[in-house]
């Protein structure tokens, strides 16, 4: 029997990936179906064979790009390698490398059983209609409110997703533009020998612009492209193309 035959619409879509994912609910599902088909004892899994089969099915189902399936394949290979390691007789500390996988498979299988129950119950309920007509109600007296934080959080999520731009995140620290400020200062100094602070920073500059200019000046002074001087405290800073030499 072809492995794909139980995937009814395989190949019907361009990316059959989607179809297969809808068919198998993940790597555990695929592994479990393999164990079932091959009539394997879940407590004593022949890892080498299962690993090989898993890879074959992955290839047949074109699941090679699905991270979850790849991860499972890697895990199986790891267990297989681990089992091949020589081990001493009476090694008490030895733990079957399959144990964790078996635990997860059993857990998953148990959950599939619950899914079956839910499917049955849900189908039963789906087959009955409740009343949908709602009469016009007279203006209600102010009813008490039932509010839960959960509801509010879900609303926040809706807002976040609906917002055209991430409006709730717009308070972003503006990055400094030191390179831009350096260009400005060089341009000013190309035109004249000396400049003042006010020549390189515009009036009403925002804090980030002031900081950028300051860092740019310090950087250019460090590179000996200009010299800085402040005649007295709080006086305007004088920027000069003439290097003050070591004294600066």
């Amino acid at each position: 029997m072809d492995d794909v035959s139980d995937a009814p619409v395989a190949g019907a879509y361009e990316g059959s990936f989607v179809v297969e994912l809808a068919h198998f609910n993940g790597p555990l599902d695929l592994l479990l179906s393999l164990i079932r088909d091959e009539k394997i004892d879940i407590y004593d899994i022949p890892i080498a064979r299962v690993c090989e089969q898993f890879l074959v099915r992955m290839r047949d189902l074109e699941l090679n790009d699905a991270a979850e399936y790849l991860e499972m394949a890697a895990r199986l290979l790891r267990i297989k390698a681990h089992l091949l390691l020589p081990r001493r007789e009476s090694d008490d500390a030895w733990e079957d490398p399959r144990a964790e996988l078996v635990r997860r498979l059993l857990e998953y299988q148990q959950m599939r059983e619950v899914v079956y129950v839910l499917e049955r119950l849900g189908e039963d309920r789906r087959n009955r209609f409740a009343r949908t007509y709602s009469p016009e109600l007279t203006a209600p007296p102010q009813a008490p409110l039932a509010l839960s934080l959960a509801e509010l959080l879900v609303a926040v999520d809706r807002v976040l997703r609906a917002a055209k731009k991430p409006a709730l995140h717009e308070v972003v620290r503006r990055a400094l533009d030191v390179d831009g400020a350096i260009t400005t200062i060089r341009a000013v100094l190309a035109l004249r020998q000396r400049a003042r602070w006010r020549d390189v920073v515009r009036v009403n500059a925002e804090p980030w612009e002031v900081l950028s200019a300051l860092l740019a000046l310090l950087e250019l002074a460090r590179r000996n492209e200009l010299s800085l001087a402040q005649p007295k405290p709080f006086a305007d800073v004088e920027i000069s193309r003439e290097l003050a030499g070591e004294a600066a």
Partner: protein
Amino acid sequence: MNSLAKLLEAALFASPRPIPAEELAGLDPDVSVKDVRAALEELRLMFDDGGHGVELVEQGGGWQILTRPEYTEAIERARFASRPQRLSGAALETLAIIAYRQPIGRAEVADIRGVDAGAILKSLLERGLVEVVARGEGLGRPLLYGTTPLFLEQFALRHLEELPRVDELAIALRREPQPL
């Protein structure tokens, strides 16, 4: 009751609107409108004779099962007495925006939600969940809204800082890789 009358009862119960007899005949290819009318009559008598809380009435261009008027008052009273109301999704969204962005003006709320929030804001004000906390700068000095102590009480928060941070929410609910 005959089986057609039972089917009609189920259909009328499930339908959100009154259904004309002609349409009801579509339920079963083997019945005529005349059959339907006879079954409706049987249904109507059953509700009237048996002492029921509901009745079958022809109105609004069709047939409908309705609660008898003598019970509506008790039902409405009980509904509002015992069933606390929930806020609509739109109201919750507006409230969420105000909670996280306060103080915030109506225009900005509308901006984020993409629709005007005037009516919702009014009802949140009436319910005492938000209040005017300041006036903004700029044209017309718009009213700015914030949440009230009742808001904290309703959500069992001690102070606003107990609201989960939005970026955590965004990470938990929004930024997951979409596998398909």
